[in-house]
């Protein structure tokens, strides 16, 4: 049974976790046999921008070894067979429609969301 992960909250705890917790959760459950799609909405559409990279955190003598690479994590989901979508209007509002985006990304206008939702028996909003 397919589940659509609708992700809106972005960059939450990504420094501490070194990933996005819902993208990570999707990876883990896919590995357990689940079938997923990912819809990026709101600020989470920024995850589709190619080449973004947060600098590693440094506090005193402590330096982070692995800063989050959210674009790569989402690209890995897509490469693993998870369809990745983003809401067109949310990209447009942020000036990202012309940005270099994840190649596998499907841009969906808000008016097209009902058809997308119809493809998934389960929809989880995060």
């Amino acid at each position, binding site marked *: 049974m397919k589940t659509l992960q609708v992700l809106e909250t972005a960059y939450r705890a990504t420094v501490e976790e070194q990933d996005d917790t819902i993208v990570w*959760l999707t990876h883990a*459950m896919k590995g357990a046999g689940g079938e997923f799609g990912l819809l990026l909405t709101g600020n989470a559409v920024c995850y589709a921008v190619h080449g973004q990279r947060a600098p590693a955190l440094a506090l005193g003598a402590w330096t982070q070894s692995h800063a989050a690479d959210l674009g790569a994590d989402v690209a890995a989901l897509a490469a693993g067979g998870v369809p990745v979508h983003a809401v067109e209007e949310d990209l447009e509002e942020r000036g990202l429609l012309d940005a270099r985006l994840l190649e596998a990304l499907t841009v969906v206008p808000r008016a097209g969301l009902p058809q997308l939702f119809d493809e998934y028996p389960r929809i989880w909003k995060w």
Partner: protein
Amino acid sequence: MTTALTFALMDAPFENSRTVTMFRIIGAALEAGHDVNVFAYEGAVALSFAKQAPHANAVHGRDAAAENHPLPRVWIESLITLAAARGRKLDWVNCGLCVDERGVAEAIAGVRRGTPADFWKMSMESGNTLTAGTR
């Protein structure tokens, strides 16, 4: 035959009213005769931390006993008791990695450690799933 329901909680205790709402929905589901699965993810794994302690509140002018401060671990215990009284199952699963990150392994009885695979399995065996992500 009733339908099992699965809930995913994500907020840490004492942070968000969404958590209270989810507890109320879980209680209502048990009262209505549903089996309930809960997957506690990220900060929500601390909801069942056994060392949560009540405290006095000088602003309220009450000692600890009179204040009777709400504790999520007590709410979970109450829900577990409710489930047993109704002959239903309440399977409360904490994300193990999230527990380790936060050092809250000492959970109350009736709560078990698991993985996202447990969440996935519980969901597939349920009639529906409600998620409450941190915002």
